[in-house]
């Protein structure tokens, strides 16, 4: 194709009417739409219907629709206790994740002159390691005879092992934060890619200190990534049901565990579904609140 022909084609493309372009865009999005519908929307809709069905116990349900599962979920002190615990750990863990991953993302984006891609690749590789394997690794590190207790004893800071390091809320917080940092960092690096380095330099030239430049320029311009990171962290951490079981001990129970038990042990699928949807409602509310933060973008 010659240059003239190419220009002609480009011109024709520009001349393609907007409705036609929209049709093409919709056509291209169709496979994704079908995949999301079949893999996400339809199962979610089925689960939603299930949450209104009547449990006959032991895995059986009747088609009679009722709000009873929602009433149980909302009025039972048991679920309230573990939900509060989950949101508490989710909230603190999410903030910790952001506090730790933001500087890391900043360092990768603005301080690393070379090897950015290698570091990002290493972070991604860390995601390939098994979830449960990583939790077990932390159990080993935090244990009575684990690396931390042994080191603290060796340097004379403690005489007896700290039993609070494992099988506690602290243990759950440490592990869930660790598990969330890689994805959070990737999200933040992605958001910071759109921030021109010269804007930070200009802020410094105008007299802002390093911290001021970050809080006044980088944070607002990365707000989309920060919101995404917070939303991701809160959903993943609050909904975790493996970590509390493995390192939470007698005090770290979270709402994911009873939800899982409703499906796997109790056989009350409507109640499990209702609890899941109430969790989802909380997540949506939190997300909507977080998106309000985006108003600060570009301040």
């Amino acid at each position: 194709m010659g240059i003239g022909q190419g220009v002609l084609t480009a011109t024709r493309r520009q001349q393609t009417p907007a409705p036609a372009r929209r049709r093409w865009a919709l056509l291209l999005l169709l496979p994704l739409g079908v995949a999301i519908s079949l893999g996400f929307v339809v199962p979610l809709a089925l689960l939603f219907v299930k949450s209104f069905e009547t449990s006959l116990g032991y895995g059986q349900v009747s088609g009679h629709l009722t709000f009873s599962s929602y009433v149980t979920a909302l009025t039972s002190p048991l679920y309230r206790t573990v939900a509060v615990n989950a949101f508490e750990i989710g909230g603190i863990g999410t903030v910790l994740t952001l506090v730790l991953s933001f500087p890391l993302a900043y360092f990768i984006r603005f301080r690393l002159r070379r090897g950015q891609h290698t570091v990002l690749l290493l972070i991604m590789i860390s995601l390939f390691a098994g979830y449960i394997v990583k939790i077990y690794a932390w159990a080993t590190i935090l244990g009575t005879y684990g690396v931390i207790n042994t080191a603290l004893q060796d340097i004379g800071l403690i005489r007896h092992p700290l039993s609070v390091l494992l099988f506690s809320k602290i243990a759950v917080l440490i592990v869930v934060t660790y598990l969330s940092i890689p994805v959070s960092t990737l999200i933040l690096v992605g958001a910071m890619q759109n921030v021109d380095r010269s804007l930070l330099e200009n802020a410094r030239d105008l007299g802002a200190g390093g911290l001021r430049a970050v809080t006044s320029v980088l944070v607002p311009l990365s707000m989309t990534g920060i919101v995404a990171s917070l939303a991701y962290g809160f959903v993943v951490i609050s909904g975790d049901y493996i970590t509390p079981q493995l390192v939470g001990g007698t005090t770290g129970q979270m709402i994911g565990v009873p939800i899982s038990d409703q499906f796997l042990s109790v056989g009350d699928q409507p109640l499990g579904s209702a609890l899941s949807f109430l969790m989802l409602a909380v997540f949506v509310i939190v997300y909507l609140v977080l998106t309000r933060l985006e108003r600060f973008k570009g301040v």
Partner: protein
Amino acid sequence: MHGEESIRHDLELLDRAMTRRRLLRGGLAIGGGALALPLLGACASGGSTAATQSSGGSIAGTIDFISYVAYDLKFPLMNKWRSSHGIDLKSTYISDQSEVTAKLTSPAGHGLYNLSSYSAQYAPFYKKLGILTPLDMSKIPNYANSMPFFKSGKIWSEYWNFDGHQWGVPFTWGYDSINYNAAKIKPITKTSDFLLPELKNKFAVADDMLGMILMSAQSLGIANPRGLFTTSQLNQIVAFLTKMKKNARTVASGFGDIVNLYASGEIVANISGFPGMQVLVAQKGITTIRSALPEEGSLSYCDTYFIPAGGNDTASVYAFINECLTPPMQAQEAGYLQAGVTTVNGAAAVAAPNRVYVPYNDVTSLFEKAPLFGLPFSPPAGYASFTDWTNAWESVKAS
């Protein structure tokens, strides 16, 4: 599976929330397999057919199995037998008995499976749901060699043979024990010992609803064979368990998890457990774990093969059930499932390391001290239901 994937698989098997039978998967993953392999090697040359009474006719076909991992008995000797008879095995694994209930009672699940298992106490409930098929016992001649407890008597007529039919074939059983590290603490003999201050933060409670509730009931002196508790009694049990949980180091997600906690030195005792844990922990270098049946008593379990209503191609299923009752297969099964076997000749064939799981010399006495408790699926008015039990256990865990 290789490398990390394999490790991950094992860990997942070990450490998901477990009931006793989920433990079997965990035990299999690290212990049972390792223990069984030498025995499998030793026995692999001993064909099973010599001691088998053949059920006759062509048995080629497909077994569509739904139950716990390992209950399809996929050890080499059984695999060899299946392939030599042209029997395919398609397995669907569950994590709780309620999944069998849900699958077999749903229209979509009807006729999909021709072999499953139930915990003995589920039999009347399953009969009521219409998901059991009366068995043609002429096709399972090896059942005649079962120990007396499994082929006659009160329990037999409640859970396996009632309304004029045989509904299931018991194939594996055991009991819940307490375990402790004899090198670290003095022997624990009672369930109530787990409330003592000297055990504070030193033991694990298993996430085993049935075991914990029934052992607590025994300790409180309020257990009865039908598993019926008033609401007030259930509250007593919850209070007892809550106190125990607050004294514990952790609520372990499964028995496999407890084995790891012994190995890492985090705990010196656990409740509930099973005698095979001595073997599993020994494989991690600690040979001082001991098991005890609590003085107050404990509970037993017995799992039973059955043919779901609507199941087709049953010739291969009957042959499989019959074959698993032969002595060579029973000997393998004991190590593979780390549990007791049900036939007289089978028990005699079990190798010494695998005889620690149940007291074969005194089965009746064991079932007196650790009964096969009934479960309250449809309790009389004023008594807690099975769902109440599960909610009670959830509240203990969340307390």
